[in-house]
């Protein structure tokens, strides 16, 4: 499996997502891919939506909640601070209520609702995916590399987007029906037409946002989704399951990259039995990965002698991955 296969695929689509179970190397591969593309003269943004994001760690620079931070020529990185995003959003809602009704403060009941709503766990996911729409729509980068949250969250969001979409369709219809009744009453009373329904406008806006954010994940023309796997039984099984679910939500899966492969040359040398066993085990699972994912396996990345942090290490990894 030539490394060039991966580089061809990576160049084809502007939205590149790295997904997989936690701790397998999503962030590392995102950073290395960003590095390589930026070296090719492309403007790249690597961003993470994970509240426990580790882009700051890998680039050895605190970028949390600071917007896009320039790492090197052509390369920016961003970690979204969901919390402050939600706070700003709440404030926007409060201000709107004050402006609309000329209140001096938000009524207690309504304030309680705003507080309670923001404590819901789903709030964070929605806020994050909503922020992603802004990043991708307003950004002027050639490539957006998306260091995804662990699989569960992404699936949860995708399914939520589907439910949301149907929900909005339903209430939009309800809203339109309401407008019809009002019109009937107006005609009979010979009153002039009522003002435009603001809520209907909002609903249409919301629908647009939700479609935009889920289509970023599912756009065949623009998105390529890469899975990170390691040669271990449990990971292979879990990845297989996740891939099926993702396929069901129409996420375009571009392929799989195997991480942490212990070089087989080591087995020829005088190494402890322990390591030899590991190598044999990995070879077995590599065969399994080959038969499970076939020609969708794009590259194998060796276990490195040290962890990847800082630009020199990222550069080294980028060279291994993309040549």
């Amino acid at each position, binding site marked *: 499996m030539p490394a060039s296969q991966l580089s061809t695929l990576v160049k084809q689509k502007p939205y590149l997502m790295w997904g997989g179970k936690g701790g397998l190397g999503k962030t590392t591969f995102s950073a290395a891919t960003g590095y390589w593309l930026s070296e090719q003269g492309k403007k790249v943004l690597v961003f993470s939506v994970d509240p426990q994001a580790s882009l700051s760690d890998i680039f050895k620079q605190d970028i949390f909640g600071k917007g896009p931070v320039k790492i090197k020529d052509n390369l920016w990185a961003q970690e979204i601070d969901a919390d402050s995003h939600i706070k700003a*959003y*709440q404030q926007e*809602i409060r201000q*709107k*209520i004050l402006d*609309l*009704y000329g209140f001096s403060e938000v*009524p207690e*009941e*309504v304030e309680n*609702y*705003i507080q*309670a*709503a*923001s404590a*819901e766990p*789903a*709030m964070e*996911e*929605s*806020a994050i995916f*909503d922020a992603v729409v802004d990043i991708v729509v307003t950004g002027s980068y050639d490539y957006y590399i998306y260091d995804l949250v662990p699989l569960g969250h992404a699936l949860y969001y995708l399914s*939520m987007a589907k*439910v*949301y979409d149907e*929900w909005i369709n*339903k*209430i939009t219809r*309800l*809203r339109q*029906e*309401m407008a019809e*009744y*009002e019109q*009937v*009453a107006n005609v*009979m*009373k*010979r009153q002039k037409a009522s003002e435009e329904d*603001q*809520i209907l406008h*909002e*609903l249409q*806006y*919301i629908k647009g*946002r*939700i479609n935009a954010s889920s289509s970023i994940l599912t756009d065949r023309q623009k998105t390529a989704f890469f899975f990170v796997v390691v040669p271990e039984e449990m990971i292979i099984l879990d990845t297989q399951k996740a891939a099926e679910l993702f396929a069901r939500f129409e996420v375009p899966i571009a392929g799989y990259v195997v991480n942490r492969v212990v070089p087989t040359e080591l087995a020829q040398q005088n190494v402890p039995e322990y390591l030899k066993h590991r190598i044999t085990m990995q070879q077995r699972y590599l065969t399994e990965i080959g038969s499970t994912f076939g020609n969708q396996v794009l590259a194998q990345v060796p276990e490195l002698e040290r962890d990847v942090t800082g630009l020199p290490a990222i550069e080294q990894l980028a060279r291994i991955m993309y040549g």
Partner: protein
Amino acid sequence: MPDNPLKRLFSTARDVMYGMASHDMSRYALRTRASMEHLFILITMGDLLGVPILPPYYSLRLLPYVVPQISTWKRRMLRERDITDALG
């Protein structure tokens, strides 16, 4: 405003016709609309009654527009009901 008596007659006749024929209908239409308004708030703002219906990120966007209706809506939703409701 001095009015043409014929015009006044027409206008009165129109009001009478409205009262006889369509007043009930328009009242019905408005009532249906009000019920739907409450249903709408229930679907979007269910959390206010402790009935979370959907993740609230986007429903917060709608909140400002329904603030005035919230108190009547709550009263209506939480009101005790009995047999006379069904008869009425």
